């Protein structure tokens, strides 16, 4: 499933990141690469953006950015 569909507190492992160009680069710079474990930390009051836990820190991204990330739960 992709990251947008995950529920708060759900954990999973990144399978692939399909984004390219600037977004792809930013995601990778922040460590969103295949094999990393993530956990959904929370969502903004309007359900978007989403905040996730990865490598011990908290990262937020918009739902349309989360769409590019496939996760195995």
């Amino acid at each position, binding site marked *: 499933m992709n990251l947008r569909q995950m529920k708060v507190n759900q954990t999973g492992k990144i399978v692939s990141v399909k984004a390219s160009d600037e977004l792809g680069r930013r995601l990778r710079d922040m460590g969103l690469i295949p094999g990393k474990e993530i956990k959904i930390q*929370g969502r903004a*009051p309007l*359900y978007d953006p989403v905040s996730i836990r990865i490598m*011990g820190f*908290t990262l937020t991204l918009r739902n349309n950015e989360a769409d590019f990330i496939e996760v195995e739960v």
Partner: protein
Amino acid sequence: MSTAIALAGNPNSGKTTLFNALTGARQHVGNYPGVTVEKKQGTCISESGEFSVVDLPGTYSLSAYSLEEVVARDYLVNEKPAMIVNIIDASNLERNLYLSVQFMEMGVPITIALNMMDVAQKRGMQIDIKKLSSLLNIPIIPTVARSGKGKKQLLQTIADNVNHTIKPLTISYGQDIDSALDQMESIIREKQFLTSKYRPRWTALKFLENDQQIIELGTMENQATVLLLEAIVKKVTSHLNATLDIHPEGMIADQRYGFINSILKQNVIQFHQDRNRLQLSDQIDKVVTNRFIGPIIMIAILLGLYNFTFTYSEIPVGWFESFFEYIAGVADSALPEGLLKSLIISGMIDGVGGVLGFVPLIMFMFMGIAFLEDTGYLARMSFMLDRIFRMFGLHGSSVMAFIVSGGIAGGCAVPGVMATRTLKSPKERLATLLTVPFMNCGAKLPVYALLVAAFFADNKANVMLLITLISWVGALLVAKLLRSTVIKGESTPFVMELPPYRMPTLKGLLIHTWERTFQYIKKAGTVILGISIVLWAMMTFPNLNADQIKTFEDRKSTIASSQDLVQIQTLTESQLSPQKLAMKDQLTKIDMEQAQAALKNSIAGRIGTSLEGLTKFAGFDWRTNIALVGGFAAKEVVVSTLGTAYSLGEVDVEETSSLSQRLATAKGWGPITAFSLIIFTIFYAPCFVTVVCIAKETGSWKWAAFSVIFNTVLAFSLSVIFYQVGSAILT
């Protein structure tokens, strides 16, 4: 001779804190040439020698996507500092090392300052520094920048390692990429392609990463070689795509993280707690970003920031005002009547006062925002509001600038425009800083108060609320318009770290505030003073000619003899006879008429008069026009100039009842005209201080000119539509 060192690292790694600890007060802030990214420099004198320190912008990577990254990379390549001090947040080691690996690939000399060791320990992390250092082959010094711990040892290590030769790091990125790199490297060596600045293998790597900056540089130097290299890149890209469904860029990033992992796995780091365990910071977030309580807390904090900036700064603003009033008073009694006096008081003292009058506001605003930024709350605010602001092509962080500018009526666009510095997305930032001047700043309020009192006295509160709504809706819609036309383009990725909550250091806050305030005084101050003198001249010249002045003098002398005049001027009102008092009133009236005639005759007056043919479609006569021209100096000047134009003398902005009564009965005025003027005031050109700040913040006078012209055209169109439709409905 001092040794040049550069501090580099991720945002929130404590880089600036270390910079402050090293340089103390011996630092200054400027900009990198041609861009608006801040450049902080300072000197550090220690037992280990003298160092000149540059604080590079915080980045997560050395790709060339953001301005910060380009600036940091160019600095390292062009200035070749003797040592790069890479500050790493020990509690967040894995991601921070991603940047270190890229420095090592570049082959630049680095020393790692492993910062926030205390935090890492508290989180149950144990780091084997010796082992990490030997595996990376880089000196690593543990530090706690907040307390200055490790500073001495760091400086000594830098001094010891400055002249060591560096062996660039070579990572294996997988067979396909490695062999492509080998091929490209030999071509680059052979053609001496960009070799004066970059290592051949690094250049090859950047081509594989599709780095636009390096490709452009290369195209300028040798296009044939670029084509040769790109052919190899294309081949390996399609091969990787077909076999592994991955781009070279992705592969390279994966392998970098893989390299970091392989090092950390060798017992370099041990967790005595679950690393994803909820820390105190996460517990706070559960409340602060909660769906229901979060927004309430946010409103409270925004109100707090607003009050802090505008209420507490009133006291120092008052000091400045009384100081300048005092100086003006001294000049008034010391100088003879005439042009020089007018220039010094109305042109220069008011001008300098105008520049410095904003200083307390700017100081308090920067202090408040730096506090919110350093604690980490600002990032949460963007997180919560992004969904709304994104609809208009803006960013969650835009909210601060809007609030400070007068989103809560009574702000000021000058600190508001400066507040956009917290926005890291260039397009969103530009759209924000061009639209914040639509907010209801404190200087527009007297204009609204005047018009509302004259024409909407029964609905005061409702009309004021309506004005606030119009400015918000207008600003957001214009932002949307700009983002779909002149500042078109995909939104910058939001991907943002939510740093753990931290208590900022007072020293850091004070340095931050002082530097930015000083920058305003230095950079904007001179321009503002110049323009205020020009505006003074526009409202003053040309003077009435001798004949016209004589007409007024003659009228005065028919009322009072020269003996009467002396008495009237020297005695106080209580000492004058009723007859003389009446005489005085008549004289004042003539003075006011003369002021009106002089204003109408001035350049500003002539502009106003000549535009009457056009502005009548919005319901404005020449008087309103002059007032609006004056409003370019500062919006509250609209009120005092209207006073002069209606022969009421200079009207005090705090006390406008005489003017509002006059307007209520004046020819050509009615609720429609008044509201048309309100609409115009919301949207037309920002005051020139704001315009200067827009130029300084965007680094271009083009955007400053744009905001003057675009806003005025927009304001005029809206006013005309409103006035024409409104008049048609009413008649």
